[in-house]
């Protein structure tokens, strides 16, 4: 139950791109084509799913106040949390490198589609952001941390997929010259973010027993809504094309 809630919360309500603006750089740079966007999105899901639980373990057993108690009572007072930035980023950079090597060795086809994005990901703020939010939101168990990593990865994937689809279509509409490219992408992202804000009320209200049913119903609704939003945008673009053709 907790898992389902956290999963949908991290996809829709706390969406990495639309609610916290993490990973915007690669989001803007690699969203010109759907195919490359899918590649990068998949790599982000993968790396988040690996690094968030790993950093959770680090945080829990090394960095937190009193986390070193397992070494013996004399270590129980240490608080190494000021080291967390450097530990997290080192873990992420090495993990990304490691994943790249393993994938290249065992699955060349996957490497061909994901490989070029992996080095990019080490400095994607979504990855470090995932770990830092995991720390500041005090996620309780390893399982929840994994769910959180996968959920926020999928949220990021959805966002980049949607913007890439819209940008492919927007080529056919007449955007004011000075807004072309970056400008219009920013404004569309802003509008999409406003759309995503409507998910805010999704997991509030209801008591424990009814919550489960609600979440499931809501979640199917949500995917439909996302589709609708995308569809609406596409319809608008289609209208624009018609106008131009006229």
């Amino acid at each position, binding site marked *: 139950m907790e898992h389902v809630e956290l999963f949908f919360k991290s996809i829709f309500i706390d969406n990495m791109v*639309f*609610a*916290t*603006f*993490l*990973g*915007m*750089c690669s989001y*803007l*740079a690699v969203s010109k084509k759907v195919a490359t966007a899918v590649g990068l999105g998949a790599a982000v899901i993968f790396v988040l799913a690996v690094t968030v639980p790993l950093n959770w373990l680090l945080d829990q057993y090394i960095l937190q106040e009193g986390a070193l108690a397992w070494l013996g009572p004399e270590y129980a007072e240490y608080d190494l949390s*000021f*080291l*967390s*930035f*450097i530990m997290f*980023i*080192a873990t992420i*950079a*090495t993990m990304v490198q490691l994943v790249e090597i393993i994938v290249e060795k065992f699955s060349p086809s996957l490497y061909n589609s994901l490989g070029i994005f992996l*080095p990019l990901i*080490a*400095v*994607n*703020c979504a*990855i*470090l*952001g995932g770990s*830092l*939010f995991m720390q*500041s939101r005090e996620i309780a168990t390893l399982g929840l941390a994994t769910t959180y990593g996968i959920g926020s990865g999928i949220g990021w994937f959805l966002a980049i997929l949607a913007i890439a689809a819209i940008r492919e279509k*927007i*080529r056919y509409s007449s*955007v*004011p*010259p*000075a*807004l*072309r*490219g*970056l*400008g*219009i*992408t*920013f*404004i569309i*992202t*802003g*509008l999409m*973010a*406003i759309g995503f*804000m409507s998910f805010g009320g999704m997991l509030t209200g209801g008591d424990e027993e009814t919550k489960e049913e609600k979440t499931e119903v809501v979640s199917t609704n949500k995917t439909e809504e996302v589709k609708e939003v995308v569809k609406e945008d596409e319809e608008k673009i289609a209208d624009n094309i018609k106008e131009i053709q006229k």
Partner: protein
Amino acid sequence: MGLLSKKDAKLITDPLTDNNPITIQVLGICSALAITAELKASIVMSISVLFVLGLGNVVISLMRNIIPSKIRIIVQLIVVATLVIIVDLVLKAFAYELSKTLSVFVGLIITNCIIMGRFEAFALGNGPWKSFLDGIGNALGYGVILIIVGFFRELLGSGTLLGFPVLGDPIGSPETGPTGLYGLGYENNGFMLLSPMALIVVGIIIWVQRSRNKALIEEN
């Protein structure tokens, strides 16, 4: 300026306008958007980035001949992370409230693409003094956008600047009622405080900038 040759001065002024890291190079967007609801947070963030980028560029530039190119990303990350930890601890000690507002975004300076971008593109190939100027210039270019966005969002969203009410008092005393612009029926636009508006404000800045300088216009 006597200290700077023309070329050096260009290193500082270029990123402020035609080669701005945010609006032209598309680097460092994440933090630019998330913390700009208040002017004060924007200013502190700009100063932090100024410190990290200026100093980091010098350090990397000094080490540029001894870093093996295969592991340079990790070396760069470690340098940035160390500097960011210093910033974070200073903020926690002297401006605790503010460091709560900035929350994880101080840590995210590490993965701010401006920093890695400048390390890769400039500091690895140039001497320390030039790299320092380049770092300062780019951090200022980043800061300018942050402060513009923060200015408009705070002014239109809460009617204050740096926490001081500049558009009058929305509640006022019982005798006079709301003062200033609020007396004329003006209302704050709470929407400006929400995160999506940051994207739209930056979009408008890009629009204005590119209308003024046609050379910057992109293909679709």
